[in-house]
């Protein structure tokens, strides 16, 4: 099958592209810089550019749409341009080119309104209620992708939740770095139960979705390891796996929520290249439960997470001790 992967310069995108190449598919990638995936045809450009999109999906039988602006803060216009506009451009292009399949990668945060999520299904994406620019624009993007679902363009939205593992810079690397610096806080007792997803499982779930989309489409599926863990425990284990000490810095939840709001505002005033140390969104994420019912996901994708959290942590130990 000829498959186009957008956003293949990131960990997940490049891993998916690599896996597809390894399975003998013809893979084209679309991103701003070379994907580094051997055997893939790179189209350099952005999803906001209709010409680049048209070139990348020409002749494709399936698209995996991973390209997104992922960040906790930043210019709202930039989020909207990539996550909303880019998705619209891609969907329009796919319809014009007659691409029959789209696996749209979304985020559980599109349906997270700040309340605890306790074993629920995916829920509807809600641009109005989601927290933060990233989640709001991803929600709008998912709605665009799903509204394009038809027998001619079969769309399945996957929402991988808190992905981690060797090579992940978004979550894993930050936890390890901050824990090494003694700056990794644990909010409250760290007991809120959260779902996460080991990177290899995320890759396999996306690959499985390319088959599943033929029979089931037009819906969203949260993808996790199906092993909820207390947030404090999981962060401690990732930190330890990365060679850092167990985080001991405890912040009361209420204080963290307030501090998050303040930091966000102060951060926006200055010029920063990196992420603020704490945002209200992050504080909420770290202090409320969010774990999901995986029965529908596993049934539709006919997929099971192959690497358990415990095995994933061992792989992480191996990764950090090798580097």
């Amino acid at each position, binding site marked *: 099958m000829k498959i186009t992967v957008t956003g293949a310069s990131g960990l997940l995108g490049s891993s998916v592209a690599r896996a597809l190449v390894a399975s003998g598919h013809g893979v084209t990638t679309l991103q701003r810089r070379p994907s580094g995936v051997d055997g893939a045809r790179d189209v350099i450009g952005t999803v906001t550019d209709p010409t680049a999109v048209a070139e990348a999906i020409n002749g494709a039988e399936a698209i995996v749409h991973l390209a997104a602006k992922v960040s906790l803060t930043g210019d709202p216009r930039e989020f909207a341009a990539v996550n909303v506009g880019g998705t619209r451009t891609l969907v329009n292009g796919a319809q014009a080119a007659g691409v029959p399949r789209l696996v749209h990668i979304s985020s559980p945060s599109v349906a997270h309104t700040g309340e605890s999520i*306790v*074993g629920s299904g995916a829920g509807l994406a809600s641009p109005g209620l989601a927290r933060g620019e990233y989640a709001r624009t991803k929600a709008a993007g998912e709605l665009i992708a799903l509204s394009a679902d038809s027998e001619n363009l079969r769309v399945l939205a996957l929402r991988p939740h808190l992905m981690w593992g060797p090579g992940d810079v978004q979550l894993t690397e930050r936890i390890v770095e901050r824990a090494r610096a003694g700056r990794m806080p644990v909010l409250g*007792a760290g007991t*809120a*139960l959260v779902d996460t997803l080991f990177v290899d499982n995320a890759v396999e779930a996306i690959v499985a979705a390319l088959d599943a989309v033929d029979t089931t489409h037009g819906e969203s599926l949260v993808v996790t390891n199906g092993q909820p863990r*207390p947030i404090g*425990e999981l962060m401690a284990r990732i930190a330890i796996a990365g060679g850092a000490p167990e985080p001991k810095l405890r912040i009361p939840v209420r204080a963290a929520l307030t501090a998050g709001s303040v930091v966000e505002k102060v951060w926006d005033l200055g010029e920063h290249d990196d992420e603020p140390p704490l945002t209200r969104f992050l504080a909420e994420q770290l202090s409320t*439960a969010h774990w999901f019912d995986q029965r529908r996901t596993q049934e539709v994708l006919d997929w099971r997470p192959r690497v358990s959290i415990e095995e994933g942590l061992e792989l992480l130990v191996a990764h950090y001790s090798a580097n």
Partner: protein
Amino acid sequence: MRFPARPATIPPTLPEWDPAWSRTVDAETADGTHSFHVLDTLEALRATGREPTGTIVALHGNPTWSYLWRHLAQATVDAAGRAGQRVWRVIAPDQLDMGFSERLEHESLPKPHGPEVRRISQRIDDFDAVVRTLLAEVDGNAPDTAGSSAPTAEADGSDHPIVTIGHDWGGVLSLGWAARNTALVSASISLNTAVHQPDDAPLPAPLRATLAGPMLPTATVLTDWFLRVTLGLGDLDPEIRDAFRAPYDAPGRRYGIGGFVADIPVDEKHPSYPELQRIGEDIAALSHPALLVWGPKDPVFLERYLRDLRGRLPQADIHRFEKGSHLVSEDFDVAGVVLDWLAARFPAEVDAGSTADARSTPAASPIAAPSTEANASIPSAVTNSSAAARPITAILDARRDDDSVASVDFSRSPAQQITWRRLWHVTTSIAHGLTELGVRPGDRVSMLVPPGNNLTAALYACLKIGAVAVVADAGLGPQGMTRATTSADPQWIIGELPGLGLARAFNWPGRRISVTPLGPVQRRLFKVETSLTDLARTDHRGALPTPAADADAAVLFTSGSTGPAKGVRYTHADISALAQVLTRVFNVAEGTGLVAGFPPFALLGPAIGATSVTPDMSVTKPKTLTASAIADAVIAGQATMVFASPAAYRNVAATASSLSPEQKAACARVELVLSAGAPVPLELMDSIAEVFPAASIHSPYGMTEGLLLADIDREGVARATGSTTTVAGEARPNLGVCVGRPIDGVELALAPIDDAGTPSETLLRGPQAHGRLGELVVSAAHIKAGYDRLWRTTALSARDDLDGRDWHRTNDVGRIDSTGRVWLEGRLQHVVTTPRGPVGPGALEALIDQDPQVSRSAVVGTGPTGTQALVAVLDAEGTELKAGLAPLDLTARLRAQVAAIDGHDLSAVLVAPNFPTDIRHNSKIDRSRLADWADHVLTGGSVRRRV
């Protein structure tokens, strides 16, 4: 004030109300045509292509309307599609001047003797008129001539049963209508209602206040006081309360509320008094099946009205919702009880060829009609009792001239010893005395007497004459005992002073008998009529009644750890079978001496012919039993057997060093030690073995509903430790509490538990059952006859009919290993339903408790059914652990062990600051509260919150 006439109307849009149910009907009543608003599900049924095969006619009371029957309407419409269910049509008219039915013209406010009040006789006629008009719409239930005692609809071949149901005054009116239309009506159901007897007792206080002269119109019509107070008796959501109020939103629409109250026959001079008396007599003549569903917390329709109805309808099945009040059908699943009962009484027609299929389909009602509990003369449909059931008192009677020792009572100082001859004489005298006092077969006698000779005498006297012993133990606490005693509703109480004091303080029912004679002041204070001592002097005149084998003998109460304590009924045959089990399985035979430190078994000595010795201990405090008290009891009874609870043995082991050489020698002669009430860990068995070196040590498994079901001895416990069962080629360690194998006479089956935590309707036995998690289901001659006045609970617990036997669903879950041993894993409602399958908490707790850092644990689930996360909660007390997340290494260790068992994923290991346990058995962990705490903590709540 004038009240203008106004025809019936259709209600506005209301919650939980299908507009398709609403219709107005003109009916020809005694005083002309009137229009009624009626809840009628006929159109809703026909809309789904179904024609009724049965009809429920329902009548509301005051101040409600047919909205009261919406749950029943919905439930019957929903059930109509199910296999094995009849299609029940519900017809529920609003009474005139009530609900959305016609408002009659009235010139003035209602008065009890006023001419404008619609009387109950008219209301029955109204009901008759509207119901007959509607019944005529469906083929097969065309009304025939009223009043004749022709066979019921079912018997004359038309097979379209008509069943009445009513609530409040609608209960009595519908029963009265049913009694006058026996040719038409097949069965009757009533919720809280009353046939008030003015000469019996005054009206309940709330009604008296309302009826007091000038108050009446103000309370009922001019203001909404009566409406508000009545609706306040249910736990109603505001929008539901508003729906009930909808037809009564202005004084001009509330005449009926006042009129209804004005028509309550408060005394003999009231215009409706003679009619109510006639209705009461007619009801008493009803012989068709009846069901009474009761909320005992009703401040108006009190227990005494249920008692009165039980007397009028002795055939009635009863289901009490212990926490239900007046609007019992608002707060509890009354519709479910009604549907189950109807399915049992009026099963849908099934082709003869497909009977077996229909039975094995879960969608078909799994409930078979349990034998009626109210009329002991009706034998149960299927009985497991051995054909030659020996009367419980047979051996006692046979030993009437025996001068050997029957019973020694160390609860007295000095110990009291009585011979068989004396025991026979005393019990027979008391039996005669009780009979002369007025105790009749089937009368219930609450026993507030601690174990010992007095209790033995009182109990066997009752058994001789078929009086039913009610035993609510002090472990329930005063509130629990009061609830239990009130629900059992004994006619008599035999008690010692503390018990009689409780009975007085909490106003228990029943005429009082003390144990020893009381002084005149105390007699008056406790309303005591006589004493056992006095009764024991009665001459043996005339013959005593002989109880039937299937007549009730006793009502015992469950511990109430999962809701209000339930009464459990045992027949004479059941108790006789239990005595025989002790003989057959444990060799307790005539002439054996046994030390009885565990109440239920303590009472069986005279039935077996064994010499029983009550040791010096407080029954409610088993820890007061010392080694030397046991040894003295062994010596006095030349006993070779000792029965006690694990808590008692713990103390016996702890005090063993004080035994004299003579006492030690006596203990060394003991052959059997039985520990009942809770599982016994091996190390306690080992300590017991040091006190009784020659004894075999057994720990039987049972419950109030089946006192002896399985058994394991010390060697068995040792062998079970570390054993495995191979399932699908993989060896899995046996986990949980091993209670051994079913004893001789007990059949064991397993109802496998599905992913939603629901036990299967299909029972497995033999190798098929091995290694699977399921609810344990047992059958034996000595299991319960049923729950007391809990029709549905009984029906559900006894719904299986494998091999035509009576089975009991134990609510215990566990596994049967490949050698047939039973491993308990907890209670059904505590099963955790993970996406990887159901988990019995006890198995994992047994595993986790082995960890040196853990004192005790509770495994609970958090999240929705079927996708719960598995959580271990550890007790901080007695450990180094601090409340919150358990240390990483401990968590990792426990998680790995759990994963190795069944591949289950332990999401979190939490340490709770304290562990709540129930009062009666200090060892039973309150998992529900721990689960609530875990839910709170795992959604980010504080770990310092008290559990």
